[in-house]
């Protein structure tokens, strides 16, 4: 599809490039975008309100987001509708919440705090209700014998996938969105709300973790376990997500 390649080119441009661009090209692009189906514009208008559109290119890239939502079958999984991101610290407290695109209902700050705490608890329970498959007392399963695995040996049961570690909730699917939870080794949880059709969510969440490590953890003024207020993180996160769509 021609349009998707075109989107990529537009999306990759950073603020610096804007100045170098000839206005004729910008106008041509603007004209191109006007040919988009009417379905995409409704989404783009609502997302334009939330993101500051500083120039034609910025608004163009938000337009492409709206377009990507309407056609999830674009090749190379360019369709990336990321609704919002929540970061929960290891104690279950909400430390970061940001909405990228409209699609989910907006909650009050208090509700987000409750949501973070609830999810933290549910995550622990989903881990503890992992089915335990009983083993024959005499059977010495290879997984149970291997050192360092999570399989309990004494109580005589094994988990469905003996080699893998036992984790809590990783993906949650509903009719309208998909929630991906990534837990770091230190217990911080990243919750990414995306469109159910969005592909490559693991890549997105890994990149977000990378940005978090670079701009939050390496920030000397950031206090551990406290709400994230790092402008650089916000900026890079926004720019990267916009660049991907």
């Amino acid at each position, binding site marked *: 599809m021609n349009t998707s390649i075109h989107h990529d080119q537009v999306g990759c441009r950073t603020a610096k490039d804007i100045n170098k661009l000839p206005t004729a090209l910008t106008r041509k692009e603007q004209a191109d975008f006007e040919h988009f189906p009417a379905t995409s514009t409704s989404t783009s208008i609502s997302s334009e309100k939330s993101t500051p559109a500083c120039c034609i290119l910025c608004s163009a890239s938000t337009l492409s987001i709206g377009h990507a939502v309407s056609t999830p079958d674009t090749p190379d999984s360019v369709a990336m509708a990321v609704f919002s991101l929540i970061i929960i610290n290891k104690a279950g407290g909400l430390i970061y919440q940001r909405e990228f695109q409209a699609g989910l*209902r907006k909650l009050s700050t208090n509700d987000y705090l409750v949501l973070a705490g609830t999810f933290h608890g549910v995550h622990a329970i989903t881990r503890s209700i992992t089915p335990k498959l009983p083993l024959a007392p005499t059977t010495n399963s290879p997984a149970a014998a291997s050192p360092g695995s999570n399989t309990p040996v004494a109580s005589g049961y094994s988990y469905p996938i003996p080699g893998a570690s036992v*984790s809590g909730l990783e993906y949650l699917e509903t009719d309208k969105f998909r929630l991906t939870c990534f837990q770091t080794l230190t217990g911080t949880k990243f919750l990414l709300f995306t469109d159910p059709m969005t592909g490559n969510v693991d890549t997105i969440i890994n990149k977000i973790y990378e940005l978090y490590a670079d701009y939050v953890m390496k920030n000397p003024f950031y206090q551990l376990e406290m709400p994230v207020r790092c402008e650089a993180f916000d900026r890079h996160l926004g720019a990267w997500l916009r660049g991907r769509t």
Partner: protein
Amino acid sequence: MTVYSFYIFDRHAECIYKRRWLPRPTSIVGKSNQVPGAAPAGLGQTVKAGDDDAKLVFGTVFSLRNMVRKLGGEEDNFVSYNTSQYKLHYYETPTNIKFVMLTDLKSPSMRIALQQIYINLFVEYVVKNPLSPVEHPGGIGVNNELFEESLEQFVTRVLA
């Protein structure tokens, strides 16, 4: 595909039916990741653990359902979730009866299957049974031979 367990909760948060399938060759065909010759564990311990399980499962799906409704709107439905070890499928009827099934990760969406269990088995054999209680105070539960038998058949033949 392997089904590990199946739960029904009524609108009063009571677990009215609970069934676990042990990965024995006789009960489930095509099971994987299990050492051949595995036998059921000591009965007493299993039953006790299962009792707690039902409450935990209910708490989980109840919280997640409310969370999903809050974020996605009233008409959004919680469908399933995965962990690294298992997958939980959820279906709720308009009368707030909740059907929950735990399967392995390879299973496709079981929403239709749960709906079929509700329509073809639960309604037919439990709801339409004049002897079956409407409410289940104190967790009497569905004690219906026909339902249990057909559920067993459904899970072992249709889903396996």
